[in-house]
């Protein structure tokens, strides 16, 4: 064993640098199931605090839903805990294939393949289907896992300004010499909560003979009239070539992801995608619970409807209170503070008011765009959100930002 002192010193210095920049990440220990109300130990060793959770991806409140838990228990008893193998050797149960078929039906595609996570799906899919004669043209704000997947692929890569269809069209024209042009976008962008204009993207893709990739992780289960995703919202179901999504957010919240889309693409992933080939199968209890989630969501839109009501109430409440928020329709509602320290101070004060939120700042979001990202759940109810709004107003008033616009906040706190 050799652990050279110089290497250790270098890593310690790097860690110190992360702390100095104020971007050191600390975990907060939750002593309860994931839900709208949670019991949190923070800082480590502190007494537990009951808080309203406004930062989970538990959009439909299914993470701790009794039917989902029961499905997991049943599968645990009947099919065991883990598969101890990758899918293609001896890691596939009928549950895995059933889940893939349910996802195909739910998303309106031709076929689906499960991955250990959506990060893995994004890491594996581009390399499996594209080569040096192809080009990937991505929105500049796509998720980090897509960036990693693109970097692993030998196809040419280009980007277009966030949701800028004129710029995308320029790029599509520029790359007409390529075999495949794949336009890559998130459905709902996780930091801003805005939608990709998918109807326009599909129209441009059809005009310029391009394919479309959609990561719908922050939409599957609740965006669109029946919760199928952003492609349903914009009326372009069946016209997206590749959809990746996660089971780790609205669809149960445990883990797992998938590539869903053209049959041949899915088949190529099954043959070539490295995270699929070299990582264990999704555990049986998770597969069974995800099937249950899709059954619940196919039977009723009650939960996504409630989420929509909550999100509309929350957006209106924040605007009326005098906060600056990012426009949009999704349950991701960023409260804009622009200054990184202000975002952290307000998040901390809110925690002591019983509201769990997190401040985000550069480099996670663009410089000068610091914010608190709030996320709604169908598990919230209006009285709970009313109380949360009172806490936001109290802390907002303390910092004197209520009623200030972007320029006003920047004038008061700088960037």
């Amino acid at each position: 064993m050799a652990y050279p002192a110089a290497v250790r010193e270098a890593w310690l210095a790097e860690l110190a640098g992360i702390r100095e920049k104020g971007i050191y990440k600390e975990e907060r220990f939750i002593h309860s199931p994931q839900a709208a109300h949670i019991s949190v130990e923070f800082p480590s060793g502190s007494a537990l605090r009951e808080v309203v959770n406004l930062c989970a991806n538990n959009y439909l409140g299914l993470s701790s839903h009794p039917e989902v838990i029961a499905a997991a228990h049943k599968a645990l008893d009947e099919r065991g805990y883990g598969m101890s193998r990758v899918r293609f050797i001896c890691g596939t149960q009928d549950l895995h294939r059933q889940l893939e078929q349910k996802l195909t039906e739910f998303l309106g595609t031709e076929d689906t393949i499960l991955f250990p996570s959506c990060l893995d799906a994004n890491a594996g899919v581009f390399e499996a289907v594209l080569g040096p004669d192809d080009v990937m043209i991505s929105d500049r704000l796509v998720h980090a896992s897509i960036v990693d997947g693109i970097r692993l692929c030998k196809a040419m890569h280009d980007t277009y300004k966030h949701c800028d269809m004129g710029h995308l069209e320029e790029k599509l024209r520029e790359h007409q010499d390529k075999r495949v042009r794949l336009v890559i976008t998130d459905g709902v962008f996780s930091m801003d909560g805005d939608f990709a204009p998918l109807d326009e993207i599909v129209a441009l893709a059809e005009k310029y003979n391009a394919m479309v990739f959609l990561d719908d992780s922050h939409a599957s289960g609740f965006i669109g009239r029946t919760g199928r995703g952003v492609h349903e919202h914009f009326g372009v179901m069946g016209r997206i070539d590749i959809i990746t999504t996660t089971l780790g957010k609205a669809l149960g919240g445990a883990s797992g992801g998938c590539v869903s889309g053209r049959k041949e693409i899915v088949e190529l992933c099954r043959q070539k995608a490295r995270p699929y080939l070299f990582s264990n199968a999704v555990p049986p209890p998770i597969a069974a619970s995800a099937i249950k989630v899709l059954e619940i969501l196919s039977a009723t839109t009650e939960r996504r409807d409630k989420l929509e009501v909550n999100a509309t109430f929350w957006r209106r409440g924040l605007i009326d209170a005098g906060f600056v928020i990012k426009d949009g329709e999704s349950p991701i509602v960023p409260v804009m503070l622009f200054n990184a320290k202000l975002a952290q101070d307000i998040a901390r004060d809110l925690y002591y008011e019983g509201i769990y939120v997190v401040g985000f700042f550069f480099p996670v979001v663009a410089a000068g765009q610091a914010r608190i990202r709030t996320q709604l759940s169908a598990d919230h109810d209006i009285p709970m959100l009313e109380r949360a709004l009172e806490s936001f107003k109290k802390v907002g008033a303390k910092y004197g930002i209520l009623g200030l616009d972007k320029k006003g906040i920047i004038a008061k706190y700088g960037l």
Partner: protein
Amino acid sequence: MKEMIIEYIKKEYLDEDEADDMTLDENTPLISSGIVDSFSMVSLKRFLEKKYGVMLPDEEATPQAFDTVTSIIALVNKHLAKKGA
């Protein structure tokens, strides 16, 4: 060369209102300030290669080398000189 590169950066990376508000000169940090992110700098690299007829190897086209227009010009000039030699 300087004006040409600044013009391209404004058009490729900034929205119209940002381009009007911002003073962008040869020493403005590009990558470290977030104006250009390292993921999107590929189009700037391709623009330079096409415009000036040089190949900028990936190991030299680093976020550091692309952080200001001055350092970009130095890199392009180095490869232009090599090409001319």
